[in-house]
């Protein structure tokens, strides 16, 4: 495929993802309850993993793509610990 067209598609993808990241962050700041905020931080983390692969294709380097895989798994640990804390303490909002 044409390199210039691929570059413009990936640049548009980065624009959409940056807009989505900003809106997710607004939910993290506003979030009335704690599970809302954790959910939005999860979505931020998965978006970051997509952006890493996009930047690796765009800059044409192997070096950058290594970080995508372990990054996906760390948000899962945040989920688990916050859920464990909320279930044990029985504290709402």
């Amino acid at each position, binding site marked *: 495929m044409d390199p210039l067209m691929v570059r413009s598609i990936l640049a548009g993808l*980065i624009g959409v993802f940056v807009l989505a990241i900003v809106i997710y962050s607004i939910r993290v700041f506003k979030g009335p309850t704690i599970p809302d905020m954790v959910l939005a931080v999860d979505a931020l*983390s998965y978006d970051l993993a997509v952006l890493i692969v996009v930047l690796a294709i765009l800059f044409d380097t192997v070096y950058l793509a290594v970080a995508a895989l372990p*990054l996906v798994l760390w948000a899962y640990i945040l989920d688990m610990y916050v859920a464990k804390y909320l279930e044990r303490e029985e504290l709402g909002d």
Partner: protein
Amino acid sequence: MIDGLGIQDLLLIVAFTLAIVFTYKTLVEKDLVRAVVYSAGQAIAYGLAFIVLMAPDLALAYVAVGVGIYSALFLLVISRTERYEKVE
């Protein structure tokens, strides 16, 4: 796009602005569990900045410590003590 302002500059501006706002919210928050979640968001924003600055090893270590280990350790500590910070 504005002249002379590439895609990397856009990503850096968004990442550092988010990091500053997350850090400020972490500092002023009285509920400690919320502060832990804000701190995880700050680690993700710095991870984006490190990726754009071509330092994936640094981003890997920062996100692993900031999102995973740090929040697990702090939630363990908070469950031993009080959740809300007292205002004297």
